[in-house]
């Protein structure tokens, strides 16, 4: 504490260590290294996405050519137009929206209620229940989808969007429940208690105090369950044989028939599939990280 090793920047840059690099040069080198590393990461992350976009803008005549210019010479929206007006794509989009809305609402409502109950009410087997929930989080889709197919066939829920919503909720509910449970424990009990001394009933304290405070957690859960349901491929692939009920992820495969693969349209479709997710992540990144922080 007596002698903090602090050297003013200007002084440091003036000192040249004998023969070696000066502090200023070392600092510049470090910064260049950091910049380079970040540029590399960004390139690996962004290039495939940009190339997808690039392909989607090329007209059919420009798709299969020997050397593709990095900046497209001809920009065309023909693939987007074909997708929207000549394929079943709008139907797939609508199915995906319905399923996601279903999964998100079901997950947010049930995990908020359940999380509150678990955090505020004491009952037996709570510890066991906690483990069961976390165990559910580890469950991969393929292990659930095979027995689900057998059960869903028995009770006529295959080829049914509601059946699909239920099935996909199995993937988002455990972690969301766990997350809200943890989240409500970070909300001080005393806030609800003071509402109750002011004359509110227990339910009112829950409704008017706890729920509004839980909003960030609910946003994190909504984002998580949206990502799960919008991106899920295995469960709809197994449960939905009826083409008109397919979500986007399964419907995408209608654009490649045997040897004919409509790359331009596939890339255009892909861009349209990922766009909403990108917007949500960029706007709500804070909640996403917050959610994972509270959750595990």
């Amino acid at each position, binding site marked *: 504490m007596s002698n903090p090793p602090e050297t003013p920047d200007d002084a440091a840059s003036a000192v040249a260590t004998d023969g070696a690099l000066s502090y200023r040069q070392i600092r510049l080198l470090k910064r260049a290294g950091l910049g380079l590393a970040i540029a590399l990461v960004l390139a690996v992350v962004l290039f495939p996405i940009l190339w997808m976009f690039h392909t989607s803008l090329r007209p059919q005549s420009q798709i299969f050519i020997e050397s593709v210019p990095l900046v497209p010479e001809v920009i065309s929206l023909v693939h987007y137009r074909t997708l929207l007006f000549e394929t079943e794509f709008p139907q797939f989009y609508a199915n995906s929206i319905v399923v996601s809305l279903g999964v998100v609402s079901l997950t947010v409502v049930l995990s908020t209620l359940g999380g509150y*109950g678990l955090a505020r009410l004491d009952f037996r087997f709570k510890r066991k229940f906690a483990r069961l929930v976390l165990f559910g989080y580890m469950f991969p*889709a*393929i292990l659930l989808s*095979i027995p689900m197919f057998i059960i869903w066939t028995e009770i006529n829920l295959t080829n049914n969007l509601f059946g699909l919503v239920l099935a996909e909720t*199995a993937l988002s509910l455990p972690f969301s429940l766990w997350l809200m449970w943890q989240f409500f424990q970070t909300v001080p009990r005393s806030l609800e208690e003071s509402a109750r001394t002011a004359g509110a009933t227990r339910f009112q304290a829950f409704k008017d105090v706890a729920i509004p405070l839980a909003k960030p957690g609910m946003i994190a859960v909504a984002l998580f369950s949206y990502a799960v349901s919008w*991106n899920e491929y295995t469960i709809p692939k197994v449960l939905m044989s009826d083409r008109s009920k397919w979500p986007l992820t399964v419907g995408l495969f209608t654009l490649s028939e045997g040897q004919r693969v409509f790359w331009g349209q596939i890339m255009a479709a892909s861009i349209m599939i990922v766009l909403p997710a990108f917007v949500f*992540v960029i706007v709500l990144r804070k909640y996403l990280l917050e959610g994972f922080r509270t959750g*595990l």
Partner: protein
Amino acid sequence: MATDTQTEDQSLRERRLRYRNSLYEFLSRRRVMAAFTILPALLLFVFITLGPIVWAVAAGFYEIPVFVPTWEFVWFDNYVELLTEETFWMTVWRSVVFAGGSTAFQLVVGTGIALLVNRQFRFSNVVQAVVILPYMIPTAVLGFMALWIGNAQWGVLNGVLIELGLLDNPFSWFGNHSTAMLSVILTSSWKFTIFVTIMVLARLQSIPQDHYEAARVAGASSYQVFRDITLPNLKNVIFIVILLRGVWMFNKFDIVYVLTGGGPGDATRTAPIYAYELGFGLTRLGKAAAMSTLLFVFLVAVALVYFRVLEPAEGVRTE
């Protein structure tokens, strides 16, 4: 007349208020509250998660014809058939290779990226947001994207490699027996590395800043700061990530199926691919259920380690 309706209005309003209050009283009872908060989630959980698991275990003992409603009880036949055939063990081994390789890769690169983008620099917020994007890409899209970029004839990857002189002729990365597994591992890692990044980043951002300041004041070097503050804080999350990613990659179906369908030959035919083939290609649903049960045993084993070692607290640490 006017006063009449007014008093009527008022009494109506009072009655409504009384109703509402008694409803709130009712909802506030402990049992009622438990019923409407915990019960719905619990019931659904039982129906859509525990139900299928129990069903899978049970169905493994039957021969299930697809279009006939009668199941035939065959004792352990499905299990014996699986455990004595080479195909089963080969697919499990490929799953181990796939899970081991991709988990190791994702852990190292994902943690590295998290440490990198967690630093303060200009536009660090933007960079953090961009880096998360791959995790939001659906597997089906990722599959087509990789197949297009790695396409033997028209793929930009081959184009660049030939341009750089690293490759003489276009190469079919996913269509070649020797490179298919590696290509699938790298492709899936493009997306799932980001899961590690998100988890580690979330943890990093919750380390109190004054710990770092205290270490600096005490004269610690950057390496010492990393070793004594960052690493101990990350230990738990790294362990969780290894377990979760290990389980998930071992049971990963979609990306492998989309990229290669298990091929070429059986180069990438992992255990979940085999389970799917059994159920929906060969319509041996009973055997597929038995296969799911066996994969499920692996999950249970990992989960037990998770609970034994980590003892995830249901009480949250408010630090």
